[in-house]
């Protein structure tokens, strides 16, 4: 791999131990994927923040990097943590966990990373432009950045993203190169009969699982070209991205008439037709719990937008929830909800706003039996990681589930 004089100096340790380690990581990744060289990045999203995932090994590594002079060179934001930084006691987190989690966040802050603690950095000040090279971890945000924004990133792991933040570079391979962004398969989508069903987080989540499983089963993991969708809200696309990444390892798709790069490509010959029945089957497959099982209700995977919070406040106004109900979002959106008066309405209902965290990374295993959610991604992790049953419903139906006895 070709390195510039500056990059070679970093590799030789002339910019300190942390930068040297970072450059070693980037060179190894570049070697494995046969990159010709490095490319500058303008934005980084770092994952691996929850102490539940990171453990003491992660804390130790981050501490070593800080001691080695680690400091960010580009705009760098953070994925969700394992708890709400301010409100962790209300959510039932152990003090020991909280102490370790704060240590993780403090280390990231000292490195210069902005502690957004969200999987939706694009709502919170880290919004790259079309065509910009970035290095993002967090699979749903990677898919969103590549597909909806048209920025260019591979699916980074935690250390790879951190290495990019410390050097301002990433090896140039994969989705940084236009030839790898070409679609390899067309999906023709039959729109649902009722317009209310279309463009919901629920429907897009089920569609993501349907398409994702097709891609996952193909050896070359082609980039999907999706046709037949007339309109898609940001919230619908956010849900689709999370589901495609979870079930298909998908980091990029094109959607005719919706995503910015689609117009550059013609639809690939190989076509798969997705019927409404297939999407319904995917939806049904994510429900194995009924109302009597559900003891946990959750919205906000990926983190809720302010528009979703507004809708939630409208639905909860003057009512009382009867089940443990977590609304996960970023601290920034929570503050906006506070200013707009939505927070009071939501908290008066007994629902809990859990900022900085989410149901995928919070240590909730063993605490609940079954979860109701509108998120296909949350269903996957609730089952595999937390051993919970799931009920997959629309956003409004999930709220009703919380209000039911």
């Amino acid at each position, binding site marked *: 791999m070709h390195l510039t004089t500056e990059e070679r100096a970093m590799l030789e340790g002339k910019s300190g131990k942390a930068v040297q*380690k970072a450059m070693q990581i980037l060179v190894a*990744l570049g070697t*494995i994927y046969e990159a010709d060289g490095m490319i500058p990045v303008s934005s980084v999203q770092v994952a*691996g923040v929850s102490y539940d*995932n990171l*453990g003491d*090994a*992660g804390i130790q590594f981050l501490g070593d990097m800080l001691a080695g002079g680690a400091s960010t060179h580009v705009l760098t934001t953070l994925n969700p943590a394992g708890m709400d930084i301010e409100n962790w006691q209300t959510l039932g987190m152990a003090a020991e966990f909280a102490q370790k989690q704060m240590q993780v966040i403090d280390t990231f802050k000292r490195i210069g990373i902005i502690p957004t603690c969200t999987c939706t950095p694009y709502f919170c000040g880290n919004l790259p432009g079309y065509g910009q090279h970035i290095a993002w971890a967090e699979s749903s945000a990677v898919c969103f950045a590549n597909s909806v924004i048209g920025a260019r990133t591979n699916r980074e*792991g935690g*250390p790879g993203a951190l290495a990019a933040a410390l050097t301002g570079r990433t090896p140039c391979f994969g989705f940084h190169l236009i030839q790898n962004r070409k679609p390899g398969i067309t999906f023709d989508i039959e729109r649902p009969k009722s317009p209310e069903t279309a463009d919901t987080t629920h429907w897009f989540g089920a569609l993501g699982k349907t398409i994702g499983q097709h891609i996952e089963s193909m050896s070359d993991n082609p980039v999907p070209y999706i046709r037949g969708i007339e309109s898609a809200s940001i919230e619908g696309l956010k849900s689709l991205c999370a589901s495609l990444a979870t079930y298909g390892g998908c980091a990029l798709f094109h959607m005719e008439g919706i995503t910015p790069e689609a117009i550059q490509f013609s639809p690939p010959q190989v076509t798969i037709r997705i019927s409404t029945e297939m999407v319904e089957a995917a939806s049904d497959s994510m429900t194995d719990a009924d109302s009597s099982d559900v003891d946990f209700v959750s919205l906000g995977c990926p983190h809720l937008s302010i528009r979703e919070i507004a809708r939630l406040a409208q639905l909860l106004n003057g009512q009382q929830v009867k089940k443990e109900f977590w609304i996960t979002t970023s601290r920034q959106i929570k503050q906006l909800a506070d200013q707009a008066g939505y927070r009071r309405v939501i908290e008066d209902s007994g629902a809990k706003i859990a900022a900085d965290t989410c149901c995928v990374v919070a240590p909730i295993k063993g605490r609940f039996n079954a979860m109701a959610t509108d998120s296909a991604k949350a269903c996957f992790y609730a089952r595999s990681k937390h051993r919970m049953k799931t009920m997959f419903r629309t956003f409004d139906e999930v709220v009703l589930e919380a209000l039911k006895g």
Partner: protein
Amino acid sequence: MIISGRTIYPGIVEGKALVTSMGISFFGGVDPETGEIVEKGHTLEGQCIAGKILVFPTGKGSTVGSYTLHRLKANGVSPAAIINQTCEPITAVGCIIAEIPCIDKIPLEAIPQGCYLKIDANKAIVEILG
């Protein structure tokens, strides 16, 4: 016999080979305190990787596995070196942060179970000493 591959992380060590034809998930698959392989049904289940030259086709599982390698090293129970057929990012990044010599592009069938190996990852060569 000398076999050459590709350097992932440099270093020179010697040790006994612990070989498997299965992938290894360091996160969840290896006990970070003891270095024991705990993945159910793995060909190396119950074996300890500490101080061994660990030979396996490729890594798998969660990206958190990189940190597990770092933790194994900190606990003094990491492998002395890693040899892969095809190294993937989890193992590569783990070897770099834990400073464990690593070579890939080595045909695994060439390495007998339990043989004594010399690894020169600076030159990307594996020498079978007996």
